[in-house]
């Protein structure tokens, strides 16, 4: 799991220009760290041969 360090959190805030008050930062940092498990999984999966879903209401060919 990725660790969302204080430095990384500050960089993310600068990049997104999201105004998160200082007293909320630990909570956001903790929640982001919890989500980092999913993000790490997405990072590590090799999906290079897979097309993303772009047509969400597609019927199966034989449906």
């Amino acid at each position, binding site marked *: 799991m990725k660790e969302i360090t204080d430095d990384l959190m500050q960089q993310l805030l600068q990049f997104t220009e*999201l105004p998160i008050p200082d007293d909320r930062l630990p909570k956001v940092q903790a929640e982001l760290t919890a989500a980092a498990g999913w993000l790490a999984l997405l990072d590590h999966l090799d999906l290079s041969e897979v097309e*993303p879903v772009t047509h969400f209401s597609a019927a199966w060919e034989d449906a």
Partner: protein
Amino acid sequence: MNITELTIQTAAEAIVSQQLSPVELTQAYLERIEAIDPKITSFVYVMYDEAMAAAKEAEAEIAAGHYRGPLHGIPIGVKDLCDTAGVLTEAGSAILKGRIPTTDATLVKKLKEAGAILVGKTRTHEFAFGGFTPGTSNPWKLTHVPGGSSGGSGAAIAADLCLAAIGTDTGGSIRIPAAVNGTVGFKPTFGRVSKAGVYPLSWSLDHPGPMTKTVEDAALVLAAIAGWDSRDPNTVKQPLPDFSGMADGIKGMTIGVERRFFFDQIHPDIAQAVNQAIAVLADLGAVIKEVEIPSLDFVMAAEFGIVMPEASTIHQKNLRQHADLLTEDVRLWLEVGEFFLSTHYLKAQKLRSVIRADIQRAYQEHQLDVMALPTTRGPASVQGSMMLEWEGYQESIVDAYVKPSAPFNLSGQPSLSVPCGFTSDGLPIGMQIVGRPFDEPSCAKVGVAYQSATDWHKQRPPL
């Protein structure tokens, strides 16, 4: 008239034969809302005047021989996420306080065209982003949550405050409240029902659909709101679902059961109830086949890899201009969603392809008509708690509710949740019946057969 025994089907029969008037029926539901709803607060706005005016109009039309069909004169609630022209629509958020849209959501327009009587707006988790609908209580146990995000709709149906309600489902938000309140919830195929005028949470995963007391009623409402809509590019020009054969029985139908993912460490009462329900389906003549779908392990990464950035994109302005008006849990998730990279989002959409193909393979390989599975991993939780616990095992509400539901938001398949029992604590349990895309009638056929052999859907909470 005993409201707790009425269904849309029985009320419609009484209306068309003029034994029951829409005015009498609507008045009875409005009185019941006034008497019962203070205990559960499932409605955020009750449309007393509008409902009575519409009921009088329906009564006059029917008396003049202009009967529109089975929803004519039927009291229905609409989730506060759906626009209703001239009527408060706040999506459960202080940000939209006082908002009155000028047009109806397409599904609301279709309900009105079918002659339905809108009795009020049901409570939603703020912007539909959560699974417990703060402010609403579960009619079976007032100390417990009604699930979410369509918790108001689920609680209102369970408490007999209307005959149908509309919900929306992004990661289970129709099926979860249906299951934990002991009602029927029908998430249709993605693109079957227009989302125009429905406040989005995640545009590629949101599905509006009906919540009712019986499967037959859900089919009636779904048939009324389904169809292509020029206002929603995701809707498709498929033939409307034909539910005429839903009472034909399930002899010879093939029903898949996936155990490794759906039954792993779930609440034992839920496992037992759903296994018993599957046995009932076998007794009714269905062929049960065990299936495996390995990619389901990645469901939560795909679901949240899509929901979080789509929701944060939708609310980017709200987060910068009105963050202080958001409730804490929703604000936190929207903030976190800002930090997902575009590569995460697009890989989640790729992962969705993998999961969708894997589910499709299982249906094709085993010639499945539907799958029968637990709707949730745990029952309604105690209000204020973010965790569920059973047999010494702890799980977050998010995992317990979203994990079994999300696969079919990702795949877009229709999924019908039906009541199938109670925990030893008296909390309702749901089984979901999942069909192939655009095959809602097979889901309904299995649901009707199950209801004909059981009476879980007839149980009412002690209000």
